[in-house]
């Protein structure tokens, strides 16, 4: 086996039942693994004519070289397919324990094509791969499915990814789940899996991961664990969820305010949940493979059953649905996990419908007789059931935002979305870093793929600077500060006050490009970015380059990782461009432009002019055409993407570049 690799890509055609193994080495040099490999294969092996739910769409699960190793946070899997939510590349990164098990079985990726005639699941044990009947599993929730497969195959060590009834029903934004709280949640990857009649993939591997320089790799990982340990409280769900007001990171309802008077109530509501697990308090509750953050909470309330949740789940249902009652939250999230549906998208779509209902734009005639008011727990629960079952008004809310609006009426404005993916609850208005991150995020729906959270306040002046940045000496911080400093010098030269704070647009576009590359490196190597400087946890790309070098036994520099990330960014962009998107779609929902929110920053708003300026800077930083947002011919050539360039020229998308 190759160092740090499972060494094989497993290709399965569910239509014909054909199973082929291909060496990962074919892709390692340019694409490394994980997200890089997925984005490349989606581009080269599908064309724009393929619809998300066609059998010809491909569903990919890819690991990076770090997955399954001693690198902190190495449980990651990147899932990708053409998304039924956005119509472009869907991407979702999941943790848990399944990825490492797949690596130990000798694989780096699973690439699925076709559609099975009947419900099936895939069972993998090292070299043996079998497509098995799943008729008896169809209809089971995601917890029970995993139990049933372990029992059937007679091995409790088996790890499973699966869909729930929502995925089986091909509901708009279904998830792929593993263990309890881990999900490929966004962009409808479970919907694609359901459309292929694939219930689950069960894996058992015993081969391990070979390391080229084990002693050196061991020491590097041990040191990384030591460095990040004191910084880990930052990632604990209890700290995130339990903040006192104001909570500047969140938004209420459909972006009504950035503060919530009931936040205190929400915080206090945690108490009974925590008391059941006092022995684990402060020592980590649960989390993913080989991760000391233990950022997730594990609850086991007698009358409610068990539940695992991470920080974003608290807010996306409580804040968005304006209900601080943790019991209704518990019920909502538990149902989403068991039935396999994205809690973030579901709560956003329900919040949108509630607003329409309260404004009188829809009535009980539309909602199947349900009184859809804010914080009406029963109504929200019933609506979620209907979405999962694709029944009545639930079928409307389970559609993607544009379709849902169309189904209700011509004059209905769709919910807040970016590139078709419903927004979460994070405050993307009052921090320019988040604003641009959300606008240009290649998969839409949030800012997490083009924003590094520890850069949010990065700037200069009295209220900004390096505050909150855990590692000011890191490559990330220094590179980011050099961008800020250049922008400050430019401002000063223009006779302006040399200050950049969270509300200033200068430097934010270039920082978003840098952030996207940093995030892409983690998603490609198979490391959780919450274990890195992304979330202020101290270790970053310097460690990643060293660990990869020791693990593979050949030098990889920071610059090479960043170049690979730039290649992946341009490859992902080329896919979007080929699908017909332009810089127009890199934008905020109409509602959020020129929009001010009550709360912490009531006077702040983002104008279209500022947004466009930040976008210009972002495209420039990535070597893309500022007018069109298309990677330039020079950029594509420099990144070894000549084939992509020829393809774009052939498609008429790169006209302006032909010399």
């Amino acid at each position: 086996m190759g160092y740090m690799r499972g060494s094989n890509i497993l290709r399965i055609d569910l239509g014909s039942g054909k199973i082929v193994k291909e060496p990962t080495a074919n892709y390692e040099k340019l694409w490394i693994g994980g997200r890089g490999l997925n984005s490349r294969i989606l581009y080269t092996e599908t064309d724009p004519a393929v619809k998300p739910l066609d059998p010809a769409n491909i569903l990919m699960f890819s690991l990076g070289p770090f997955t399954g190793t001693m690198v902190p946070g190495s449980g990651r899997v990147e899932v990708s397919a053409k998304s039924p939510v956005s119509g472009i590349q869907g991407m979702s990164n999941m943790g848990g324990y399944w990825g490492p098990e797949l690596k130990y079985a000798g694989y780096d990726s699973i690439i699925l094509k076709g559609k099975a005639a009947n419900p099936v699941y895939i069972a993998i044990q090292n070299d043996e791969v079998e497509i098995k009947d799943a008729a008896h599993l169809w209809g089971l929730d995601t917890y029970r499915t995993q139990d049933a497969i372990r029992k059937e195959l007679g091995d409790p060590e088996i790890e499973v990814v699966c869909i729930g009834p929502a995925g089986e029903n091909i509901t708009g934004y279904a998830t792929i789940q593993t263990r309890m709280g881990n999900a490929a949640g966004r962009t409808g990857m479970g919907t694609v899996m359901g459309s292929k009649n694939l219930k689950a993939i069960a894996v058992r591997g015993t081969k391990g991961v070979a390391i080229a320089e084990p002693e050196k790799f061991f020491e590097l990982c041990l040191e990384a664990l030591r460095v990040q340990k004191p910084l880990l409280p930052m990632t604990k769900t209890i700290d995130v969820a339990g903040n006192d007001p104001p909570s500047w990171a969140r938004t209420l309802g459909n972006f009504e305010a950035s503060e919530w008077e009931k936040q205190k109530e929400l915080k206090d509501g945690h108490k009974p949940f925590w008391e059941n697990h006092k022995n684990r308090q402060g020592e980590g509750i649960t989390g993913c493979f080989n991760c000391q953050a233990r950022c997730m909470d594990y609850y086991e309330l007698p009358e409610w059953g068990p539940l695992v949740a991470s920080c974003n789940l608290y807010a996306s249902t409580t804040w968005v649905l304006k209900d601080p009652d943790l019991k209704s939250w518990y019920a909502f999230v538990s149902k989403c996990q068991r039935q396999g549906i994205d809690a973030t998208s579901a709560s956003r779509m329900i919040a949108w419908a509630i607003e329409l209902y309260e404004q009188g734009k829809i009535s009980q005639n539309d909602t199947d007789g349900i009184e859809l008011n804010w914080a009406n727990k029963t109504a929200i629960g019933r609506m979620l059931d209907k979405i999962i079952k694709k029944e009545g008004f639930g079928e409307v809310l389970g559609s993607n935002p544009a379709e849902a609006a169309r189904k209700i009426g011509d004059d209905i404005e769709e919910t807040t979305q970016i590139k078709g993916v419903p927004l979460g609850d994070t405050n993307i208005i009052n921090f320019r870093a988040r604003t641009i991150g959300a606008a240009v995020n290649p998969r839409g729906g949030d800012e997490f793929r083009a924003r590094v959270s520890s850069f949010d306040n990065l700037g200069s002046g009295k209220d900004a600077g390096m505050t909150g940045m855990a590692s000011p000496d890191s490559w990330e911080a220094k590179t980011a500060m050099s961008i800020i400093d250049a922008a400050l010098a430019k401002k000063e030269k223009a006779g302006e006050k040399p200050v950049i704070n969270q509300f200033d647009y200068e430097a934010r576009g270039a920082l978003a490009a840098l952030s996207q590359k940093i995030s892409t490196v983690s998603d490609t190597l198979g490391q959780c970015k919450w274990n890195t400087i992304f979330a202020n946890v101290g270790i970053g790309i310097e460690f990643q380059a060293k660990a990869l070098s020791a693990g593979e036994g050949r030098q990889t520099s920071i610059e090479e990782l960043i170049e690979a990330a730039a290649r992946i960014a341009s490859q992902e962009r080329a896919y979007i461009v080929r699908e017909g998107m332009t810089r127009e779609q890199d934008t905020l929902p109409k509602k959020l432009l020129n929009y001010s929110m009550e709360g912490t920053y009531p006077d702040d708003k983002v104008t279209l002019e500022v947004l466009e300026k930040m976008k210009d800077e972002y495209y420039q930083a990535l070597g893309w055409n500022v007018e069109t947002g298309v990677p330039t011919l020079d950029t594509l050539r420099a990144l070894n993407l000549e084939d992509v360039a020829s393809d774009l020229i052939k498609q008429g998308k790169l006209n302006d570049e032909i010399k």
Partner: protein
Amino acid sequence: MSKVIVIYPEKCSGCQMCEVSCSLRNMKECNPERSRIRAIKSEENGQMQFIPSTCMQCETAMCELVCPVNAISRDPQTGARIISEKKCIGCSSCSYACPFGACFVDRGLGKSIVCNQCDGDPICVKVCPSGALEYVSADQVNISLKRAAAQRILNAQEIIQESPGPLSAKPDQDLC
């Protein structure tokens, strides 16, 4: 005095860090299958339980007694049982005799292996993020376990008295 690894299973959260680091340090690859400590999981309908399992350093060690080639002895420095790779014939007698399944024939080596306490500095204890493992003097196991039990009672009393508990939140940490 020899030392032992004490296990607090209620604290284990199943991260497998002990397994990954043990296999890397001792077997030069990342492979839980070849780790000398395992977090044994049991999951049913979302209820999760994990119990770390490794060599308990028995006073009367069945592994040592049944070994047909006298390959197992005590390290005079740490008190840990060690298996001589030279002598071991990989017959699995020790695996069958061990009440915990702690020693096992490694398929890569063809020899039996068991926790050697990493020469007095067990890596599993060092990396455990949940406080589920402790490395203590063998004569302190008893008091360590008693203290853990006492802590559980204290915690229960706190719940009854509705004390605020450690639910403290710090500002400026809202990162999501």
